[in-house]
């Protein structure tokens, strides 16, 4: 169980979120000019990265807002959480150990430009999560 730090709500269980696939896939500027192959590549072809991967997540049973996340696909380490519409941060330093799923928002609302890694979980390797925070 991942502990994901929503920019609006703070750290919550992975089960409250939905995965939205690879982030930063731009809509083609002139979609009508694409041939079938290019269109198919835009629609269906995604990177299969080993290591840090930028992806979109939706806090579906919380604030219902989208955000971006930089996650290591090998270690599941969450390296950064940042708002929609901002660029991918430079491969970040390891996130600090964080506490448990909390009702306290540990970050500001979306719209801040700076990528936020505060309170970001370090994934399954985290030993600080209490029994209740894992399923």
């Amino acid at each position, binding site marked *: 169980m991942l502990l994901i730090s929503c920019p*609006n709500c703070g750290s*919550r269980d992975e089960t409250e979120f939905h995965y939205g696939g690879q982030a930063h896939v731009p809509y083609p500027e002139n979609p009508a000019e694409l041939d079938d192959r290019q269109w198919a590549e835009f629609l269906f072809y995604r990177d299969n990265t080993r290591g840090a991967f930028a992806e979109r997540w939706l806090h579906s049973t*919380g*604030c*219902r807002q989208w955000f971006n996340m930089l996650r290591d696909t090998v270690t599941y380490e969450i390296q950064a959480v940042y708002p929609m519409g901002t660029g991918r941060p430079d491969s970040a330093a390891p996130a600090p150990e964080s506490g448990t799923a*909390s*009702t*306290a*928002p540990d970050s500001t609302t979306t719209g801040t430009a700076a990528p936020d890694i505060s309170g970001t979980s370090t994934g399954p390797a985290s030993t600080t999560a209490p029994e*209740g925070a894992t399923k």
Partner: protein
Amino acid sequence: MAETAALDGINGLQDIRRSPASHLATAMEAGSVEGTAILEESPFQTMVGLRVDPHSEEGARVADVVGGLPARCSEVGGADGVSVLWLGPCEFLVVAPEEAHDSLGGTLIGSLAAALGGDPGQVVDLSANRTIFELSGTRARAVLEKGCSLDLHPRIFLPGTAVNTEVGNIPLILEKTGEESFRLFPRASFAGFLGRWLLDAMREYASPEVP
């Protein structure tokens, strides 16, 4: 005249309206343990879904009607018996006593819609969308902790706050109304399951504690 007829029609329906967990009323009474864990379904409330940018002018007008919008997750706004729960940066749920509903002589929904005017946002009557369970008692927190992964310890989860989360795998709004009392807002179709789940979680507190 036509309007009066419509109101009579609505009020007639009011008499036969059943709350989503009404079939569990006797079970909840039997399953409650006085002082330890008491489960009840709350009387109908008027609930309004509100979407507006709180930092905009129309947001300020709407905030005046309800007595303040919450600024961030877990905050509860409102005044005078009206609470405004935070659902998202631009989404709120207004909860008021039933008589605030426009069909029962109140003005809540009409005045919210008027305050929003033609500006971006929405005001929707959601009074029948969710039901409300009231759970209280010294073990109320222990009951919730069986199915909620948030830290519900009183030093973290304070009275007068509310969060969107899951209890017993049911998405709901969890509001802490007092030191040992909570309100749970599941959607109506989950009321039966959640009511039975809570009763099951409460069952052990009816037996003497095994030392």
